[in-house]
Structure formats: C-alpha cells, structure tokens
C-alpha cells in the first residue's frame, strides 16, 4: 500500500475521529484532575464495570450462536430472521428500554444489563456471521468427518471466538458509556448510578467541560482495557484460513435439530425484536388507553408528516457518514491489518473514539470546528456527517482490518509484481475482495449514525434529526408520536435490506 494513501487516510481519520478528542483533552485543567474524588468514583466505576460485563456477556451468549446459525445453517424463515435480528440494534437504546419496560416490571442493574445486551447482541451476531462465512469450508468438512456436528461446532467456535469476543468488547464499550437507559430503568426502586452518569452530571449541572473531561479518564481507561486486548486477539486468531484457493463453507445440515433450533432462534428474535416492535405499534395505536388500528394509522401518518424533514436530515447524515467512511476504512483497515509495528498502538488509537463518552466527543467537535476558518463547515450539515463518521469509523476500520487479515496477501503481491500501482491494487484487487465487509461496515456506520443522539446533541446541524424530535416528543408524553416515529426510523433502516431481499436472489452480504 502506498505510504501517501495511508498517510492521507490516517490524516483524515485523525482530523475527524481523533481531533475532537484532542480538542476536548486540551480543555482539561490540571487542578480538576488533581481534585478527582477517586474514592467516590471507584464505587461508580465498579458498578459500571459490572453493568458492562453483564451486557457484554448477554450480547455474546445470544449473539454468537445466533450469528453462526444465521450464517451457516438453513433455519426455517432464515431470510426474515436475518433482517429481524438487526431490529434491536436499530432502535435507539432509550426507546428499546421503554418498549421493554412496557412488557415487564423488572428493574435495576440486571434489567439494565439485559436491555443493553439485547440492544447490542445483533452487533455480535453480525460480526460472528461474517467471520463464520470466512471459514474455509475444508476445515469444517474435515472436522465434521472426524467428529460429526459437535466437532465441527467446536472447531468453528475456536475460529470465530476472537471476533465474538471483540464484538462483545464493543457491546461493553456501548454499555459503560450509556447513562440514559440505566437512569430510566432504575427510575422505580433502588437507584443504580453509574460512572457515565457522573460525567454527564459534571458537564450538565455546572457547564464545566474541564471537570467532565477530567472525570472521564478512568472510564476511558476501563473501556480501552477491555476493548483493545479483545481486538488484538482477533489479529492472532487462527481465522486466517483464506488461501489463494479459498472455498466457502457449505450450509450445515441440522437434521433433527433444524426445527428446535429454528424455534429457539425465532423465540429470541420474537422477544428481542418483534416484542419491542409490537409494543411500539401498540403505543402508536393508543396504548393502554385503548388500541385502535385507525389510531395507529393516524399516528403513522402524523409522525411522517411532522417528522419528514427530520427523517430526511437523519438519512442524509447517516448516508453521508457511511459514504465518507468507506475510503478511509478501506485504506486504514487494510494498512492496520498488514502492519506489524503499528498494530497495538494503531488499534488503541483507532478504537479511542468509541471509548470516549459520547457527550464529550460532541463537545470536542464543537471546540475543534467552531472557528472562523471552518465557520461554513460548522454551520452546514457536513458537521453532523463528520461527527457521525468520526465516532463510528472505528467500527468500520476494525471490520475491514479483520477481513483484510483473512485475505491472502499473495494476491496483492502478484498484482504489484504485475505492475499495478497502489491505488489500482486497492481499487481493483483489495476492494472487490472486501466488497462484503465494506458493505457491512457502511451499514453499521449508517445504523449507528441514524440512532446517535448523545454525541450529536450539541452540533447545530444535528438539531433537525429524527432522533432529536423523537426524544423531545418523549418528554411531552406524546406516546403515539414517539412510537410511530420510532417505527418509521426502523422502517427506513430496514428498507434497503428488505428491497434487496425481495428483488434479489443473492443474500445481502452485509446482513448476518
């Protein structure tokens, strides 16, 4: 890969993803660092770590088998399952919490961990599914011949485990940086304060950015401590099974297990995706005051009429962020996978934007871009795009890095020997090989950008997004409006995949 191309991508990443963090860190007053109440913080941090580990464990336990089944087995209704399994990831976490709380009176830390786990297990499923598809079919076949289905499952689990752990690391990062869901779920009964709560309170109650940033470092350190090792394990995994003559794995025949496993998968999807969707439809149709299909129709029409410009803005920002990330992720992900010297440091740097509390990432963007020289950019919708791209590019870069690591470098070497330049090798050889991970990565950025609120809350351009309107409607007890708008958001995110499923015979590689 050309050093120029890598330098250009690294510079773009540094500006968009690391620049806000640097700008934010520059605001810290040393006195605020010295004044940190570590004794009080330790209790909060311990509770936060428990919550994060609980959410990550649930995401792993549900997501890993689900991803493997969807990628490798022919379940009943697999096509629908593939689309529906993503629903919890598409719903804004607070909306998911509200929908879940509508069905149960379960509260407290465990309930929060369960909701955060439900909200992030599709991410684990997505990455595990992609990894499971990259396993060389000969390895699976050999294992199956030697020891049957159980032996094959063991071998394949060994291969996908690093990816599963890494994606569970992301679930951990999302869980420990959230405070709204925890606060909402423990509104009844004993309170469950977490560390992110303290950071947000420092910022919100005193308008004190320095104190908030200073108090954030233990949480950032905790997140890095979990996420970076998990990601490094991926690099050392035995998943490099791509050879020049790679053979994709064949579908696993489940035999007598097909129906029980299908029922189990549908039960999980029913509880985590259909139940929240049904709850939203119930609320949009009048809820506890009396559900009526006509009310549901009216709510959907009204939400679309009122929220149309907001939905347009959200879609525009999310598509923009996903598109902007494609070239950066391709170059940087490829370079990260092929590099040995920069692996640990590079991984830690790439993952940093995800480990920073979102509200502080937003403050950093304000500090970085609100200058006379960049005034036009700051006032335009590009600002929201840059923020979303910066925040979620890490997921994309790391996904591409993992996929690149599983491709045969000899193919690129051959192209280079044949006289192809770095740009041509990248566009003509690497990009087509990584087409599916690229599509998947773009979709992940699109989805997260669409449901992002915390980091974008301060940026002028993000003022008109659907999430912004949705959260304000929550406040006014506009249950029908909230539910209907949430349903529209889900619909617009699912639409591309649904159209693809209806009109194409090929599986959409980006889906699990």
């Amino acid at each position, binding site marked *: 890969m050309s050093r120029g191309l890598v330098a250009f991508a690294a510079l773009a990443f540094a500006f968009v993803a690391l620049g806000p963090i640097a700008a934010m860190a520059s605001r810290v007053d040393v006195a605020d660092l010295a004044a940190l109440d570590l004794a*009080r913080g330790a209790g909060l941090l311990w509770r936060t770590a428990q919550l994060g580990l609980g959410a990550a464990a649930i995401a792993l336990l549900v997501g890993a088998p689900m991803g493997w089944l969807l990628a490798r087995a022919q379940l009943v209704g697999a096509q629908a399952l593939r689309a529906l399994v993503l629903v919890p990831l598409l719903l804004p976490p607070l909306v998911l919490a509200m929908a879940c709380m509508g069905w149960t009176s379960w509260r407290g830390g465990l309930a929060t961990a369960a909701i955060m786990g439900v909200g992030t297990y599709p991410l684990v499923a997505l990455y595990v599914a992609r990894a499971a598809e990259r396993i060389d079919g000969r390895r699976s076949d050999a294992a199956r011949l030697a020891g049957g289905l159980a032996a094959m499952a063991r071998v394949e689990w060994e291969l996908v485990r690093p990816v599963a752990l890494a994606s569970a690391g992301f679930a951990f990062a999302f869980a420990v940086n959230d405070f709204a869901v925890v606060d909402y779920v423990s509104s009844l009964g004993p309170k469950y304060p977490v560390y992110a709560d303290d950071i947000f309170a420092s910022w919100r109650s005193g308008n004190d950015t320095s104190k908030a940033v200073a108090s954030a470092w233990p949480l950032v350190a905790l997140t890095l401590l979990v996420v970076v090792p998990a990601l490094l394990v991926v690099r050392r995994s035995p998943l490099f099974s791509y050879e020049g003559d790679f053979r994709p794995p064949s579908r696993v025949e489940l035999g007598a297990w097909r129906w029980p496993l299908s029922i189990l998968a549908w039960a999980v999807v029913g509880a985590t995706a259909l139940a929240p969707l049904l709850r939203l439809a119930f609320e949009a149709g009048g809820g506890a005051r009396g559900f009526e299909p006509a009310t549901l129709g009216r709510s959907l029409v009204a939400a679309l009429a009122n929220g149309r410009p907001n939905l347009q803005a959200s879609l525009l920002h999310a598509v923009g962020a996903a598109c902007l990330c494609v070239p950066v992720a391709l170059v940087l992900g490829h370079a990260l996978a092929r590099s040995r010297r920069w692996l640990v440091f590079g991984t830690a740097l790439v993952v940093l934007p995800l480990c920073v509390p979102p509200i502080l990432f937003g403050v950093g963007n304000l500090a970085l871009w609100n200058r006379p020289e960049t005034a036009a950019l700051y006032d335009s919708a590009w600002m929201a795009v840059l923020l979303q791209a910066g925040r979620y590019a890490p997921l994309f870069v790391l996904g591409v890095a993992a996929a690149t690591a599983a491709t045969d470098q000899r193919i690129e070497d051959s192209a280079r020997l044949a006289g192809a330049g770095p740009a041509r090798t990248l566009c003509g050889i690497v990009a087509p090989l990584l087409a599916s991970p690229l599509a998947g990565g773009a979709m992940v950025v699109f989805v997260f950008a669409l449901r992002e609120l915390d980091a974008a809350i301060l940026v002028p351009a993000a003022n008109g997004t659907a999430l912004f309107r949705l959260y304000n409607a929550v406040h006014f007890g506009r249950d029908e409006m909230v539910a209907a708008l949430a349903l529209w958001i889900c619909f617009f995110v699912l639409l591309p995949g649904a159209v693809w499923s209806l009109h194409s015979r090929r599986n959409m590689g980006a889906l699990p």
Partner: protein
Amino acid sequence: MRSLHHRLAALCATLGLALASCGSDPDLVVYCSLDQEFAEPLIREYQERSGLDIRVEYDVEANKNVGLALRVREEVARPRCDVFWSNEFAMVVALAEDGLLEAYESPSAASLPAEMKDPDHRWHGFAARGRVFIVNTNLVDPGQIDSWDDLLDPRHAGKVAMARPLAGTTLTHMAALHEVLPPGEARRFLESVDRLSREGRLNLANGNAHVMRLVSEGQCAFGWTDTDDFHVALEKGAPVQAVYPDQGGIGTMLIPNTICIPAGAPRTEAARRFIDWALSEEVEARLAASRSAQIPVRPSVARPAHVKAPGEFQPMRYDLRTVGLSIRARAAEFQELFLK
C-alpha cells in the same frame, strides 16, 4: 464499469450539494430551550409576520437547557447565536455573571415585575412554570399532601417520586430550598431522599416528565413535577390533580423562562426586535393558553381558567440571581450526595 464510476461520482456530488445546501445564512439565529412543541408554532408565526428567515435551534429535554448554554459559552470566540431563550433562569444568570450577555432594555419588559428582571438588563424573566405535586387521585387523597416534606412520609413509602436533583428545574428547586429554608434543613431533606431512594422507598425518576408518567400510570401515588408536565397528564385524561405545596409556608416555587442576547451576537438589531416580541403580553398569553400552560408573571395577561395567577396561590419568595449564582456549587454538592 465506467458507467458505474459515473453514477458513483454523480451520487457523491448530489450528496455533497445536499449537505452543503443545509447551511444557508439566516437573518436571525435563536437558541431555544423552551420545549420545541410550544415554541415552534409561535416562532414560525413571528417569522411569517416579520419576514425574517429565522433559524431556531432547540435543546433536547435530556440536556435540561444546558446544551444550549454550553454552546453559547463554547462559541464565545465566534458567536453565532443572536437570542438565547431559556426555559429557566439559573444558567442564564451564570452566563450574565461571566460577562457573556449583552444588555438590552426592551420596552416590552417595562410591565414585568422587578424580581423578573436583571437590574443591568442582561436578561428578562417571563412565563413561568410552577413546581407542584402531581397526585394520582385514585391512589391518594390530594388533601393529605400539602408540603415539600410529605415526600418523606412513611405512609407513602415506595409510592412517591421526584427527579434526581442533578439538573433542570429540580436542581434549581432544591438550590432555592437551600436559600429559603432554615440552614441545614434542605440538606437534611436531600440526605433523607438519597437514603430512601437507596432503600427503594422513594423513586428517583429520570426527569419531571417521567415523574408525571409514573404518577399518571398509577405506579406512584404522587411526585414533584412542573406545571407543564402536569397539564400534559391532565390533557391525556389521567386521574391526576395538582397540589401547590407550602401555601402558608415557604410557598410554591415559580421558575420563569428567560431571554437574553449573547455578547457579540452577529445580528443584534433583529435580536432586539425578537426580544420585544417574545416579552410582549401577547406571547405570554399564548404560552398560557398552550398545552404547557405557562403561568404569566404579569397579572394583566389573559389566561385560561386552568392556569392559576400568582395571586391565586402563594409563590415562593426568592432571589433569582442568588439562586442562579449558587447553582454550580449546589450541583456539585448534590452530585456527591446522589452519585456514589
């Protein structure tokens, strides 16, 4: 392949143009933390009447008004906001004390009570919300509840709620209690709140709207909320009643909207015209008649029957500036108490 490249280039160009076109230069930029639902139709009407192209940027409820106040601070090197319309006063007082606001003596403010105005004309208060108890009449007799410390009454253990006093009107309310109650009493009250919440005998909701929801749905018997939230519950037909607490005692707290011009605002003339309009009796009457049922601070302003006038109940007497100045220290104190 070439055709695909052309299509991709066209797509990128279209996306770029669409994104860039979202940032045209307006005649006035208003940061507004009054709830979008109430402010939007009013400001749209003013926009049509004045012919100005107004860009309004709202705050989300979760931010409790701080997001926009922070932006005013962060943008001090390159101010872009012309008018900051806040739905409370504490953050605005803090901005004024830090020299981040411009003075403007609006003719519309002449009829405002003296306690609602900054002596240096940097901010003006109008259209207030009351801090009331929302009571579910199916679960408890509203006559049993009349004071702030009823939240601690063992008879109601597990059935009462308030928002955590870390932000928003609850923070301001608790800060004001420290000013009006005898020394140490407010602190003792909050320590009891913290203890009871840890024991599961008092519910700390994630906002006043959530308190309203918990009471409306019968999950709690009563709780502290703002009058706008109470009126939303009433409009939805919930079995609720508002109790204006501490009549004969410290009185019920009123929290006004405030409006101001950030220092260095780029379009001062348009900002002043906007403030003249926002402080008019007409706007205060419209806010009283809206779903938020804001309480006019001027007795002369028309209001619907369900919106009480300060003369119909005893409001809490406190100094906005003193409470505003104490807010950061109180916030830090409450944070240490409730987040551990």
